[in-house]
């Protein structure tokens, strides 16, 4: 199968500081790929390069077949993005937010209308559709933000610590949404600090000091590092870190 994310020796230097050091990995269509690492390990920098926000210092990468150096405009059309700050406008209503992002990605009015209806039914949010997003509970905002991020059916959706500050039940529901999206063929690239979430991923990479130290399925990583849980694996690897948190 052709990989949707291909990174080869991808590096980013800021002066003397090497934030991401020759990172190589591949992610396949429909996969849920966990991108783990302590604060300051270089996750965000790597993710920004993959999204076309930051130009790599060296190495190569392609996203959905497009080059991160020359085809960032194409990349942007085929990805979705959601950050821990839930990335919706609080002073716009639920429907207005959906319409705005639908419009940005070039969906027709008719498609936006029908898909909005479907989305609201799916999230059971029809009653809330004309409420300002700022008035919704955090968990709902998060679920809505994810649905908006995949609304234009991107090839890949990048989730940057999407479940920060959310209770375990809502997190579970959120992961149900992630599974559904991945069943529709959307590749999910997710960073997280919750190790139980790492267990939900198909494959996991763990970054330490700008380098990918381990990359495999959660089950294989646990047996390789002789650990009972992903938390154990993470501690064993992250302890070696010399860089402090940023």
């Amino acid at each position, binding site marked *: 199968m052709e990989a949707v994310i291909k990174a080869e020796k991808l590096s980013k230097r800021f002066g003397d500081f090497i934030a991401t050091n020759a990172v190589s990995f591949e992610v396949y269509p429909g996969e849920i790929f966990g991108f783990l690492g302590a604060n300051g390990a270089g996750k965000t920098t790597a993710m920004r390069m993959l999204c076309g926000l930051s130009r790599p210092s060296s190495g190569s990468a392609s996203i959905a077949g497009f080059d991160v150096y020359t085809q960032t405009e194409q990349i942007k059309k085929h990805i979705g993005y959601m950050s821990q700050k839930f990335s919706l*406008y609080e002073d*716009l209503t639920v429907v207005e937010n959906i319409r705005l992002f639908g419009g940005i990605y070039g969906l027709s009015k008719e498609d936006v209308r029908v898909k909005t209806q479907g989305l609201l039914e799916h999230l059971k949010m029809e009653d809330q559709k004309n409420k300002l997003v700022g008035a919704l509970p955090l968990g709902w905002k998060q679920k809505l933000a994810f649905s908006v991020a995949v609304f234009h059916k991107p090839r890949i959706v990048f989730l940057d610590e999407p479940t920060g500050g959310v209770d375990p039940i809502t997190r579970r529901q959120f992961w149900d949404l992630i599974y559904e999206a991945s069943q529709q063929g959307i590749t999910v690239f997710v960073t997280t600090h919750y190790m139980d979430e790492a267990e939900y991923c198909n494959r996991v990479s763990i970054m330490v000091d700008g380098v990918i130290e381990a990359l495999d399925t959660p089950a294989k990583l646990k047996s390789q590092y002789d650990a009972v849980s992903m938390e154990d694996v993470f501690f064993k690897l992250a302890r070696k870190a010399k860089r402090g948190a940023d």
Partner: protein
Amino acid sequence: MYFLNWPEKQREVPTEMKQFLIFVRKEFKHVFRDKKTLLMLFGLPVVQIVLFGFALTNEIKNSKVLIVDYSKDQATCSIIAKIEASTYFEIYSVTQDPLEMEKAFKKGKIKSGIIFPLNFSYDLHHSGKAQLSIIADGSDPNTATSLTNYLNSIVQDYIHQVSGSRTGLLFVKAETRMIYNPELKGAYNYVPGVMALVLLLVSVMMTSISIVREKEMGTMEVLLVSPFKPLLVILSKAIPYLLVSMVNLAIILLLSVFALGLPFAGSIGLFVLVSVLYIITGLSLGLLISSAAASQQAAMLMSVMGMLLPTMLFAGFMFPIENMPMPLQLFSNVVPAKWYYIIVKSIMIKGLGLSAIFKEVLILTGMTVFLLAVSLKKFKTRLE
């Protein structure tokens, strides 16, 4: 998530124009949903104009005048009678003692006075030239200007009457002197000043805050990852604030012409064009601040400290620049408000055309181009 599989029509790449419109609509929603800010945006100019305008404008009625008449002849008596007859003035006393005038000024009994020198009538009729002094209390500059203008016109009116009955022109040189405030800054100065202040404040503060808010909320990141052009994000933010500023401009103009009775001597078209230029200066400054500020509070502080204070101090409407020490005078040249202030005064009050304000417009244009270039470059580097 079956909605994902809805069979979509052919998806078109939205044109830049379409993206832009989508975004402008969103920005308008932000502006109009924030009722508090909206109230401030439109309340600020009204309050400032009314405060500055009415606090400094006094209706002149039965203002007391003291006359020191060394001449006591037919001409001075006629002028005094004319002054008495007008509704604006009331004669406080006619005397030959100048000290009495000084006392009356100090006690605040009178706002103005006239001194006729010896042989006023003789000079007027024999040499065709005479002199008199009009003195006004300049601590209330607006009133003082009006008083001296009225007194002067009464004198000129008299001269006009008597010259009609003889050949050859008569000429009275009225020497006006403002005591207590020789600079004489008044409403004519304040209204253009308030325009310079309000327009800059609205455009700088609102732009910087609205961009920083997107950064703070995390929505900026999402927009940057989307196919939306970053430059369009910024441009579409400028549109609502440009519009709000134009509405403000109209409010200020209407208030100053109809409520304060200010003249509008020059071309409205030219005035609007220059104002748009000035607003764009403000928008680029706001953009520049937004790339430096990390939070909305910081943006607000930078706008107020960096914009409001220099504008108040160095635009020239509160404190005369020509009285400042040289380094401050030089600094005032980089304050955009100074140039806009000169332009507005020239167009509004003096009715001058583009040729008269060409230098100022050129300087303002240069500043705007420079600020816009720097702020766009900074914005781009920040994206990297």
